[in-house]
């Protein structure tokens, strides 16, 4: 660290981070940074809503250590460079003590250096491909070993022997599939095919021809957004039924299913760490409250819930640390139990969330019937030991 960085940090602390400088009745700024425009807005706006809802609830209940929280909302515009720019603005101009946000890995990667340089903290809510380990990010979305690998294990236990991998052409599907392939290979099962379509792609004729030729037992689908609709429509019109060739999707939640038309995807599987149908009063209350604010038909999804719980996890960590200081909050967050609509969870020392994996089947009302759940919480592994044997994430030193 050079002198100039030190200077910036010192200045930042004097302005907002330092507990001492904060009068008891002063509000504290936090950043909310999601895409409100552009291609990702569809998904990210709902996460923003959930994050704001949590902040409002906390304020209504008296704030954090007596301080009211002010959310500074910024638009990342689905563009990584803008995410980095707005993150800088939040930290430098708005003196936020922490930021909730991000969805795509591209946006997270672009923001990471900003948070490391300013030693601020980002709470990231979406399942991702792992392979990252930063002290300045709290990863509450699933690591590969908490979503895609449990789904694979489930399929293997169901007796599925040949797997066809279809994905949008970007980092999450390619990396997730690379890990799955290693495990398929290790377990002596067979890979029926692997195909990628550019983001937003609509023509699946060739992919489907290959699926037809390969006759897989199950399709692992990591397609993103609109491409899913094209894929399922063309699959149906090619006479491949979900009953004969099941599809396990990793980016289709309640919201997407609703938008696609439930009849199209009914009977397909999805793997997440949260489903709207999870039992429990806390979950029912959460859903009711969200629908109160955003309409009776609003879908509640896994990333939304992670956005919501991030705010509460931050509050709990601040209160445990007795300070807003980033290093103290980060240290306090680890192994700290937080009550959430998906049960009591905690962050592991590698700053990823311990959580349960579920496999659900989509029913005719657009909800998931939970078929299977992992035995207890799964410890997060940013690097899959089989695929990346020489990698580990140890944040205790830094």
């Amino acid at each position: 660290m050079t002198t100039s960085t030190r200077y910036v940090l010192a200045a930042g602390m004097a302005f907002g981070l330092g507990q001492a400088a904060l009068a008891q009745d002063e509000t504290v700024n936090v950043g909310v940074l999601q895409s409100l425009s552009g291609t990702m807005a569809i998904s990210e706006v709902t996460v923003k809503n959930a994050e704001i809802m949590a902040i409002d609830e906390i304020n209504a209940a008296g704030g954090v250590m007596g301080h009211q929280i002010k959310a500074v909302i910024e638009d990342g515009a689905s563009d990584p460079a803008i995410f980095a720019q707005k993150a800088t603005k939040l930290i430098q101009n708005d003196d936020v003590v922490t930021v909730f946000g991000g969805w795509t890995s591209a946006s997270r990667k672009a923001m990471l250096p900003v948070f490391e340089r300013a030693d601020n903290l980002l709470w990231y809510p979406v399942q991702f491909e792992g392979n990252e380990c930063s002290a300045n990010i709290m990863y509450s979305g699933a690591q590969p070993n908490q979503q895609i690998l449990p789904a694979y294990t489930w399929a293997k236990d169901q007796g599925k022997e040949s797997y066809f991998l279809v994905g949008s052409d970007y980092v999450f599907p390619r990396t997730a599939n690379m890990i799955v392939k290693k495990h398929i290979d290790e377990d002596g099962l067979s890979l029926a095919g692997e195909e990628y379509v550019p983001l937003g792609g609509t023509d699946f004729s060739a992919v489907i021809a290959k699926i037809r030729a390969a006759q897989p037992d199950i399709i692992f689908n990591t397609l993103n957004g609109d491409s899913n609709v094209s894929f399922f429509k063309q699959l149906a019109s090619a006479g491949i039924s979900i009953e004969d060739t099941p599809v396990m999707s990793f980016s289709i939640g309640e919201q997407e299913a609703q938008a696609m038309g439930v009849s199209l995807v009914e009977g397909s599987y999805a793997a997440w760490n949260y489903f709207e149908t999870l039992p429990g009063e806390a979950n029912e209350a959460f859903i009711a409250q969200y629908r109160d604010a955003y309409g009776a038909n609003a879908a509640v999804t896994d990333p939304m819930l992670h956005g919501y719980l991030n705010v509460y996890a931050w509050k709990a960590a601040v209160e445990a640390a007795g300070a807003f200081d980033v290093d103290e909050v980060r240290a306090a967050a680890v192994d700290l139990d937080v009550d959430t609509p998906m049960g009591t969870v905690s962050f592991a020392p590698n700053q990823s969330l311990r959580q349960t994996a579920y496999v659900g089947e989509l029913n005719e009302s657009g909800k998931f019937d939970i078929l299977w759940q992992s035995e207890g919480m799964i410890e997060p592994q940013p690097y899959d030991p089989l695929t990346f044997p020489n990698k580990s994430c140890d944040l205790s030193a830094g």
Partner: protein
Amino acid sequence: MLDATLLAGQVFNGFSVASLFVLAALGLALSFGLMRVINMAHGEMLMLGGYLAYLTYLVVPGPLAILVAMPVAFLGAALLGAVLELTVIRKLAARPLDTLLATWGVSLILQQAARSIFGPIGVGVTAPDWLNTGFLLAGVYIPSTRLFILAVAVVVLAVLGLVIARTRLGLLVRAVNQDRMMAAASGINVRRVDLAVFCLGTGIAGLAGVVLSLLGPVTPSVGQSYIVPAFLVVVMGGLGSMVGTTVAAIILGLVSAISQIFLDVSMSQVLMLLSVIVFLQFRPQGVVATRSRALEE
């Protein structure tokens, strides 16, 4: 793994993709041939067609809704085309590049309007059951949706061919196409011919939007995913010729489908662009060259 069934299947898929290209590009090519303008909002006419199909399905449910949706979408898109022609394109007649830019602004506004009205997620249009079947032909599965789209493309081409060759409108179009000034001098209302052709073109795009909804989602950005290949078809086809457009669409459809046996979709897109550039090295005027006495085209 080149087996005959896969190859035959991809040849069929190539024609299927080509039929989409034809429907998306035909309107562009018609008005380009006549007025030398490219309408960047053409993709949004596809989008409008899709949304009109969705609305029609709400009003007239049932297995034959799609047959109602097609004329509705044709008329709706043609109407929007008329508005666009009268307010923007006519005013920029002498500046084709500026027309292209102004219509991009229109496309941006239309997309955002769809987002405001129907929401950003898009709407589902389900194919009727009689289209959700298919049959095996020599080991190749032929989905009836794709066959239906192919048939729509053939019918549209045939009707358009008849209109151009046999009707009074067609006569006027041919006259203006050959020599705009002489046609105007001999008393043809050139502006009105422009308007008619433009509306016809956007109407076909609306129709294309309906059949696209059988294969994919109807979203505010659905037009964008088809518009760039449609532009390539127009460039390769040559100045607004129907035959040229059709041939170019078939070539590009086949290149795309057959290359996907060996390549992934991204690389096959690269190959498509390269084949257009290489093709233009040999035939810069496109598949069908129109002979013109005018020096500056």
